């Protein structure tokens, strides 16, 4: 119960008027930042950083982390309304969120996403409270082999499923993996696939690709369907929020499973993006309504959103305990920590309990504030869908192109986004799945690094992926998930074969 007393002390720190005001301000700025694609949470936090130089560390981290929560929620808004993920981790939300919005259920989709996020965040922060002290020890067990196993698990959970043509899935995956190799290679220090172009040295930004593939690609595809020029008659009432709240218990299984996946990925630290993809993949595989996924299935919104936030919240702790950030935003905050004069590391919890527990307490309050605030915006944002497509399309195009520009202020990125837009449109028309490409772009280079580091360490021996119980169980689970459709078929076949003689 020592932790409980510490938490109470943390609430004393967090629940001052000053800090509550900072939370509201942070969340509001965060929502704004999240809604503008390309600006994104990492840039937003970096922009706000100079303000925090004059604050005590607790206030500074409360402001920045509140902004992060706001940005995560804001990122879901554009995913659902315009099919433009504001954050890498809300890509998976587009798969079913945007179809729901197109069916006139934007308010439901947004409410579902935000409530699920709130639930995920709550589970994450409770976990953080309970296991705060043991976190660092667990994360230390992760060598490159374990990292690779976790990435493999994310890939297998998402990809090894039926539905679309497996060959097309493989093509999409391989294109994504190749795109991920562009730029400097960590392990050899060589430039790869840059063709001597300075703009390619930093690699292809994931956000630029996503803005093109999803945002612009969707726009082109919609423009193609000529009959859909008028706006969607969306019901927009605050009551939609309440009725969605009442429906939440229906998704208990998805919520709990996704929260568990999110927390695991946050602590290990696989990161929120991997968590949301994995959770979506698992939900699609095991849901009773799996055929409805990709066509506006509420469970397909609930699952990635819950995981995204559970991971985002629980990833903050390994960062503090180890000094290794789980996401790009966490990296910026980590830099801030050192500027404020704090040294991240296992002893931070003993040296600065007021800071650590103040932050943890603020995570309870700020996430509550964030969900309430963002739910209040649902009617406003959802009514955007009623605007006729002819008016909305130029606006979305502008958002996409300025978003691509904002990623790093480069004109080349704008051209790249347009190129990806055409690619996204073609892939849609030719029925190639885009998601594997995106997943490969996010995790491909990390997985490759981890694999090659493992091979350096084991001197080329693949048994390193079964060298202890932890890595062995993750690798085996990944391979089982990959082979699941096959295994399920075999089991079913076996069962009928057994039953037949009895008949």
């Amino acid at each position: 119960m020592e932790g409980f007393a510490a938490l109470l002390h943390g609430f004393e720190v967090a629940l001052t008027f000053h800090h509550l005001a900072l939370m509201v301000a942070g969340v509001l700025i965060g929502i704004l930042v999240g809604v503008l694609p390309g600006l994104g949470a990492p840039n937003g936090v970096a922009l706000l950083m100079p303000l925090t130089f004059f604050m005590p560390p607790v206030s500074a981290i409360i402001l920045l982390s509140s902004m992060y929560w706001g940005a995560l929620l804001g990122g879901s808004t554009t995913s659902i309304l315009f099919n433009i993920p504001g954050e890498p981790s809300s890509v998976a939300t587009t798969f079913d969120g945007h179809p729901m919005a197109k069916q006139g259920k934007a308010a439901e989709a947004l409410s579902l996403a935000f409530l699920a996020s709130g639930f995920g965040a709550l589970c994450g922060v409770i976990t953080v409270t309970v296991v705060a002290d043991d976190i660092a020890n667990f994360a230390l067990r992760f060598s490159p082999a374990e990292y690779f196993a976790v990435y493999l698990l994310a890939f297998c959970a998402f990809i090894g499923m039926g539905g679309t043509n497996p060959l097309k899935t493989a093509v999409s995956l391989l294109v994504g993996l190749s795109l991920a190799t562009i730029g400097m290679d960590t392990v050899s220090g060589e430039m790869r696939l840059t063709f001597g172009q300075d703009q390619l040295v930093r690699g292809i930004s994931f956000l630029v690709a996503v803005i093109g593939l999803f945002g612009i690609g969707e726009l082109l595809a919609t423009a193609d369907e000529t009959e859909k020029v008028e706006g969607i008659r969306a019901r927009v009432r605050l009551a939609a929020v309440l009725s969605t709240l009442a429906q939440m218990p229906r998704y208990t299984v998805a919520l709990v499973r996704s929260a568990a996946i999110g927390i695991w990925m946050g602590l290990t630290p696989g990161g929120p993006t991997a968590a949301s993809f994995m959770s979506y993949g698992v939900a699609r595989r095991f849901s009773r309504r799996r055929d409805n996924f990709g066509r506006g299935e509420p469970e397909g919104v609930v699952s990635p959103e819950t995981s995204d936030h559970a991971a985002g919240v629980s990833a903050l702790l390994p960062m503090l305990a180890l000094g290794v950030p789980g996401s790009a935003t966490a990296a910026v905050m980590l830099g801030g920590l050192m500027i404020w004069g704090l040294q991240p590391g296992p002893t931070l919890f003993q040296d600065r309990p007021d800071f650590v527990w103040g932050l943890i307490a603020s995570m309870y309050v700020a996430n509550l504030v964030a969900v309430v605030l963002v739910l209040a915006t649902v009617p406003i944002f959802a009514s955007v869908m009623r605007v006729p497509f002819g008016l909305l399309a130029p606006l979305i195009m502008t958002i996409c192109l300025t978003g691509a520009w904002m990623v790093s202020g480069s004109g080349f990125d704008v051209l790249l986004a347009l190129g990806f837009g055409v690619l996204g449109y073609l892939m849609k028309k030719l029925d190639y799945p885009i998601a594997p490409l995106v997943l490969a772009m996010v995790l491909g280079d990390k997985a490759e690094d981890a694999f090659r580091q493992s091979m350096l360490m084991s001197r080329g021996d693949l048994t390193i992926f079964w060298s202890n119980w932890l890595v062995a169980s993750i690798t085996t689970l990944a391979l089982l998930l990959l082979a699941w459709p096959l295994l399920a078929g075999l089991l079913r076949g076996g069962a009928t074969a057994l039953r037949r003689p009895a008949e």
Partner: protein
Amino acid sequence: MTHRTAAPDAVSRFRASRRLLLLGGGAALLARPALAQAWQPARPVEFIVAAGPGGGTDQFARIVQSIIQKHNLMRTPVIVTNKGGGAGTEAFVYGRGAAGDPHKVVFGTNNVWLMPLVTRVGYGLSDLRPVASMAADEFILWTHTDAPFRTAKDLVEAARERQGAFRMGGSQARDTDHILTKLIERATGVTFTYVPFRSGGEVAVQLAGGHVDANTNNPAENIGQWRAGRVRPLCVFNTQRLTLPEKVHNGVGWSDIPTATEAGIGPAEFRMPRTVWLPARTTDAQAQFWTQLLARVRETPEWKAWLESGSQGDLWQTGAELAEFIRRDEATNREHFREYGWLVEQG
């Protein structure tokens, strides 16, 4: 203003602050002709960090930014942007594109002149103008607490016995950690398996978890794990011991770490300068402005506290002295890289 070079620091500092007052008081138009030679920024300044957010170089730029703001050293605002692509070359290529623009200031390390040696990059050393070197980050040989070796010499002998299977973790390939590892190999005749990770923070955790056998992290990257008793310093690659009196773990502190020479291994000295650059084709007066500004940053307590928190050395070099240092360091490394087969001809 011709006697400026002879003026002691204190005088020029006074002059600079008086200038700010004059301008701030709305007397700008009157004051300007008299100060025609002295340049100062006319619009917001961009600090470009040749690294991603969170690491040492990023902190370097942001600390300078915070000090400028806090002490009101400059009238125009400062924006910090990270251009860490291609191990920082993205920032230098950006610097080349900004030739002649004194409102773009690039923050890096020795990677400015080392990167063009090992990989094809879109800039040359002549595209940037060195302004100052403000600090030198130290390198320490670390091992994890459960490792059997107590001294650097033990570690080298253990590595010799394991015939190349000894895992040395480091940040990036062909960057400072890798270069130092190669120098230790040259000095001692052993070979390590060098495992590159993305950042010093990752390497620190890999060592604390016992997944690699040693690393050559900077003090700031490993202090958290040292304080927790998970890693142990064996020697520092400096001719003198570190001076910080603080005891970090179990009564052992920075000043107790033996130098590499004391520990009986080489190289005797390896440090990484933290450098500040302007684009090429900027004027002397513009460079002068930044040199003076950074000199004032250097004297603030915040700057000293930052150096101390990361146990970094003070290394203040400017002008011809800095240019000469860079020229010599580049030549030495070019020789070594040729030997390792790392050298790349820029095409």
